[in-house]
């Protein structure tokens, strides 16, 4: 009997040990940090700790950018250890799932990647999980270094909650220059011109617009640009603030344009990712592609094309002078261990130097307006120039314009629309999801 009991105890002990090994290793690394802290004189509570940066930057250019950032930070602050906690896959979906688990288990990373706009405000800020960064902005004199409308995007109730690191543009159309030259086509600037060009290309046997909406957001991105084309940036923002209803005549017009535009896309769009659709343009099977400007990185780095020789770019028709802004930002969650070190890191992320190291590698442009344009390629220089003067509007497909819940439902409605082409159905689906924006 004693034997049995002792065996039982042993097995219980083993189980308990296995269960708690996670926390054991945590606390031991904690003591490591503490000893380092006392060595280097210490900050705050005597611990020059570590900063954990959480992102989904694991792709080719973006990972290089992130590593370069971390290297530069290590040079400047050798005392602070930076942990790269990137989660790969699913265009950030996997990372968001991990983040949600950690945030709700009160184990937040020191700072994490989040798109500016409602993805930040309607979730973590609304859940009281973020610290306001107003003092950080004032201390660094940032209020006039970022565009005002960009700061608005990362603010809620007058408090600023994150630091924008980069900017991507969503309302760009990339086009195959050879095809345009061959058919003597001008770059369209209005929707009417766009449809005229599409008609000519169709007649010539070229697919006018490449679309790869396997994941649906690609189609939603086209739709949001059509919305901006009809409404203009100001009313587009009002639409997603709830000041304009979804059954507004211009929204209906945008949906009708969407229906019309879908006549000009490749038949197998549902089987393609955006990269696959970009290949259609690269190989000359399709003429145009509406995609965020990360597609430029794909054209140049992965497909070896030359900007302004093989492919050109223009603003989505009727949105010239407007800028669909997708910005990756980093904030400060409540309850992180090393607050001062994290603030140090955020200050660094907001600096011109850091942004000019990261963005040329990632293929985006800096969020600051005083960065050095000479470090960027032709497309980057152009976009930096546009960004200074353009009216910004937040993107729906990437979670800036509305809550994640609304975005999911909008994607669902768009997916159904792409097949059924039922304008009334789309409008009523958006309208019924509107309370969740």
């Amino acid at each position, binding site marked *: *009997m004693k034997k*049995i*009991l002792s*065996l*039982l105890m042993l*097995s*219980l002990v083993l*189980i308990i040990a296995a269960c708690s090994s996670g926390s054991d290793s945590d606390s031991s690394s904690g003591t490591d940090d503490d000893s380092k802290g006392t060595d280097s004189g210490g900050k705050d509570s005597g611990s020059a700790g570590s900063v954990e940066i959480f992102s989904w930057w694991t792709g080719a250019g973006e990972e290089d950018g992130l590593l370069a950032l971390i290297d530069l930070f290590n040079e400047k602050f050798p005392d602070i250890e930076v942990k790269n906690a990137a989660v790969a896959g699913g265009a950030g*979906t996997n990372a*968001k*799932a991990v983040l*949600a688990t950690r945030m*709700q288990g009160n184990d937040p990373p020191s700072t994490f990647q989040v798109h500016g706009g409602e993805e930040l405000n*309607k*979730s*973590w800020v*609304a*859940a009281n999980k973020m610290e306001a960064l107003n003092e950080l902005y004032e201390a660094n004199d940032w209020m006039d270094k970022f565009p005002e409308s960009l700061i608005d995007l990362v603010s809620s109730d007058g408090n600023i909650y994150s630091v924008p690191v980069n900017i991507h543009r969503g309302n760009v159309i990339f086009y195959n220059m050879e095809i345009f030259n061959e058919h003597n086509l001008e770059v369209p600037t209005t929707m009417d011109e766009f449809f005229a060009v599409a008609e000519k290309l169709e007649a010539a046997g070229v697919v006018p617009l490449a679309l790869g*909406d*396997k*994941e*649906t957001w690609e189609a939603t991105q086209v739709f949001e640009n059509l919305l901006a084309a009809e409404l203009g940036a100001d009313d587009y923002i009002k639409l997603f603030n709830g000041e304009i209803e979804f059954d507004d005549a211009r929204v209906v017009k945008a949906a009708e344009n969407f229906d019309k535009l879908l006549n000009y896309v490749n*038949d*197998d*769009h*549902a*089987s393609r990712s955006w990269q696959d659709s970009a290949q259609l343009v690269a190989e000359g099977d399709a003429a145009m592609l509406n995609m965020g400007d990360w597609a430029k990185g794909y054209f140049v780095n992965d497909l070896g094309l030359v900007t302004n020789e093989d492919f050109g770019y223009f603003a989505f028709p009727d949105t010239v002078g407007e800028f669909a802004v997708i910005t990756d930002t980093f904030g400060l969650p409540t309850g992180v261990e090393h607050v001062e070190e994290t603030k140090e890191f955020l200050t660094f992320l907001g600096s011109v130097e850091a942004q000019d190291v990261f963005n040329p590698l990632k293929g985006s442009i800096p969020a600051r307006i005083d960065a050095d344009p000479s470090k960027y390629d032709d497309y980057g220089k152009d976009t930096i120039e546009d960004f200074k003067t353009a009216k910004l509007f937040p993107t729906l497909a990437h979670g800036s314009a509305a*809550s*994640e*819940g609304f*975005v*999911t*439902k909008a994607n*669902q409605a768009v*997916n*159904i629309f*792409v*097949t*059924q082409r039922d304008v009334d159905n789309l409008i009523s689906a958006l309208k019924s999801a509107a309370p969740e924006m």
Partner: protein
Amino acid sequence: MMEKDLPIRKKNKISKDQLTAILFLIPSLILIVVFVYGFIGWTGYLSVSNYNTIVPDFSFAGLKNYAYLFNDFRFQADLRNTIFFTVFFIGLVIVLGLGLAILLDQKLKGESIFRNIFLFPMALSFIVTGVVWQWLLNPSTGFNNFLKVFGIQPKWYTDTNILAGFQWGQIEFGLPVAILAVVIAAVWQMTGFSLAMYLAGLRGIGDELREAARMDGATEFQIYWKVVLPLLMPITMSVVIIMAHISLKIFDLVYAMTGTGANFVTDVPGLYMFETTFRGNYYANGAAIAIIMLLLVAVFIVPYLWNNRKGDQS
């Protein structure tokens, strides 16, 4: 078990052996109760809560989330797809697995080579299968370009047609053609498994039974139809159970191969659950889908377990 139980009841006392067994089971029992049944319970509770944003809200919502799902176009489409996927997948896996097993059972030379060839796809993960078949069945690549020469242009999983469809609820109910592409990939992967099961079953049927049937003047076909197949029933049951729980919970294959599909023609509940929970932060809706999936699997598993229990007792 039975033989051992009897003497214990007589003594009306638990034997030392049994006590050891129980004591050793307790730790894993506790873990299973907490981490399996506990969390199933918690998921069930979430599914009737208002937790549909990132801000936790555990207030009671009744069956609101279930009502929403059953009125939702996407979820109705998911149920339709699951039904057709399950029927075609299980049917084909059984027919092909049995057919191949019977062929291999003809005392073939090099049988083990064939068996390994057929079994091999099972070693792959569904993700790999998904990526491979995504390209094989892409309407604009490879074999499909060859078919174009003959004027055949199958659209495979990009087909949005619903065969024999009629309006039912929000959706058109019928066979979504696109799901057949997913069925092909899944059958390709899992047929080897049912083949192995059936082959083992066939080996268990003694030659004397066939001989006896032959003596009675049965044709080869009748032998299979009236003797072998009924004897293989337990194997068929096991294959159905195993395949059903794979097909009802399928996620990775669809995720890698087709995604939700245009008009949700290849969407499945697992995919919807993942997206609505982790993209849309609809935790309660996601939990409700999980519970519905659990009930669907239970429909298959519970009668099976019940049957087994009766078998043990008799």
